């Protein structure tokens, strides 16, 4: 649905996006993660035909960027970082205006559909400026969807929302995926990306990694199994290390922390070896690495510190 090849954008001396090559598949939620100033918004603006790339090529919804920009604009919806609503105009008029520009056939029907879907129908005559932040964000999402775009670009959709509003927006995004739309999600919220995205790209001017969250965890950390024991004999570290496919073993308090590629097949052998050596195994669990661990490791300590 979105293909880029060496997509690059320069602002005078500043390189904002450097040779980005990626492929976003039909119907997936694609997370685009990176620190502030990484070039995420610039990428999103290029892909939605708002600004032109300095070099490189891209196709969005089958149309070539730079050659068929109006076609791209017709087929993508964009939720910008700021909702950007006409505060003096009613919620309904805000949507009717954009529906007109997007050449929607049944303007009133579509406006009603999305206002109802997002729980704003009862307040459709009220000025958008009187809405809470969450309601404004929902209205902006409705605006991005009015023309039923094939691709939806969402820039920080839950930023600044209270937990309840953020939850509602996340649920709505998950529902949109069920409708078969391709969603390109820029977010700082790593938990959100982990829960929503099929695949993620970690980006800091250039692409650092691209895969499913689980695969990235696996690539960077393998899988880690923790054996909780009644006591730890130092010789058991070597014992476990000798079991095939074990990548690393570490003793900590009354635990043995074991990194393996495939715990389902290796764990029984480890357990047998430990029991044979006299270990009392109280509990076995897997240590799950968060997407934050993956993200910070990919970005490196300097970037992680500078971005809090």
């Amino acid at each position, binding site marked *: 649905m979105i293909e880029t090849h060496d997509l690059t954008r320069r*602002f005078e001396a500043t390189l904002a996006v450097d040779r980005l090559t990626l492929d976003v598949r039909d119907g997936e939620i694609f997370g685009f993660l990176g620190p502030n100033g990484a070039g995420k918004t610039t990428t999103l*603006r290029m892909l*939605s*035909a*708002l*600004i*032109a790339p300095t070099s490189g090529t891209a196709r969005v919804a089958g149309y070539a960027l730079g050659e068929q920009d*109006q076609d791209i*604009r*017709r087929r*993508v919806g*964009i939720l*910008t970082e*700021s*909702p*950007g*609503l*006409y*505060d*003096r*105009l009613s919620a309904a*008029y805000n949507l009717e*205006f*954009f529906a*007109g*520009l*997007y*050449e929607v056939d049944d303007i009133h029907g579509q406006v009603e559909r999305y206002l109802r879907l997002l729980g704003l129908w009862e307040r459709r005559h009220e000025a958008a400026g009187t809405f809470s932040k969450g309601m404004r964000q929902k209205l*902006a999402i409705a*605006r*991005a969807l009015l023309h039923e775009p094939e691709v939806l670009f969402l820039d920080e959709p839950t930023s600044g929302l209270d937990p309840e509003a953020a939850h509602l927006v996340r649920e709505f995004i998950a529902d949109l995926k069920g409708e078969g739309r391709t969603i390109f999600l820029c977010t700082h919220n790593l938990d959100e990306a982990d829960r929503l995205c099929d695949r993620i790209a970690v980006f800091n001017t250039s692409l650092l990694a691209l895969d499913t969250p689980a695969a990235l965890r696996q690539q960077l950390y393998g899988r880690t199994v923790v054996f909780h024991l009644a006591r730890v004999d130092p010789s058991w570290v070597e014992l476990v290390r000798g079991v095939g496919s074990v990548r690393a073993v570490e003793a900590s308090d009354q635990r043995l922390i074991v990194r393996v590629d495939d715990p389902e097949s290796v764990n029984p052998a480890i357990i047998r070896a430990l029991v044979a050596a006299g270990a009392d195994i109280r509990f076995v669990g897997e240590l799950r690495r968060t997407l934050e661990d993956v993200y910070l490791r990919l970005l490196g300590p300097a970037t992680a510190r500078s971005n809090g």
Partner: protein
Amino acid sequence: MRVNKIRIIVRKEWAEVFKNRLVLFSVAFLPLLLTALPLAILYGTRSSGDLGGMSMSDLPEGFRSLCGEMTGGECTQYFFVSQFMILFMIMPLIIPSTIASYSIVGEKTTRTLEPLLATPVSTIELLAGKAVAAAVPAVLATWGAFAVFAVGARILAIGPMVIARLLDPLWLMAIFIVGPLLATAAVSMAVIVSSRVSDPRVAEQLSALVILPLLALFIGQISGLLILDARLVLWMAVVLAAIDAGLIALAIRLFERENILTRWK
């Protein structure tokens, strides 16, 4: 260029900008003021029986030749009325400057321009919509104000010869041709300025500078250096049409979507 998109933009502009008090003031109050002022002066001079103590010999020599068969009093009255023509040219300059500078920079400051530019609307459609939305109220307000002035002047019983002059080609050309051309110039200037600044107040102040040539004309006329006759108004129309063409082309060229988006602060 799709007319429907322009119409959608115009409707939105009017729905939005007329909820702004400053814009309402400039569109509604300014024409009222600039119409009431000359009528009040005319009324004052009629009731006091003189025209500020002026006689025919006090008028600029070039102007006296415009009076033809008018009496001295009528010619003096006509001189007064002629000064007001400039006021009816100020209206189509000020009103669209206010609306246009607000509507473009306003889109930037409220962050509505990005979603707007993300729609399949072309730059020409967008600018045409904003220009029409700014120019039409100005032109209509000017024409309305002129109609009120003409009727008011008749009621206030200025001389019949003077009333006839208000409807002669000089005035009609000034109001119905030069007025729209001035409005177009003001809108184009406002678009150019708005594309380059990020504060609506600065945009409005800079856009209002278009009034300066007209003020120079006003001073020139009062001091007798210039006589606003049919030939001068015709020349104004020709020169303004040429200036408008240049300004419109420049406004379209300077309105760069990318710069406006990426240089937001």
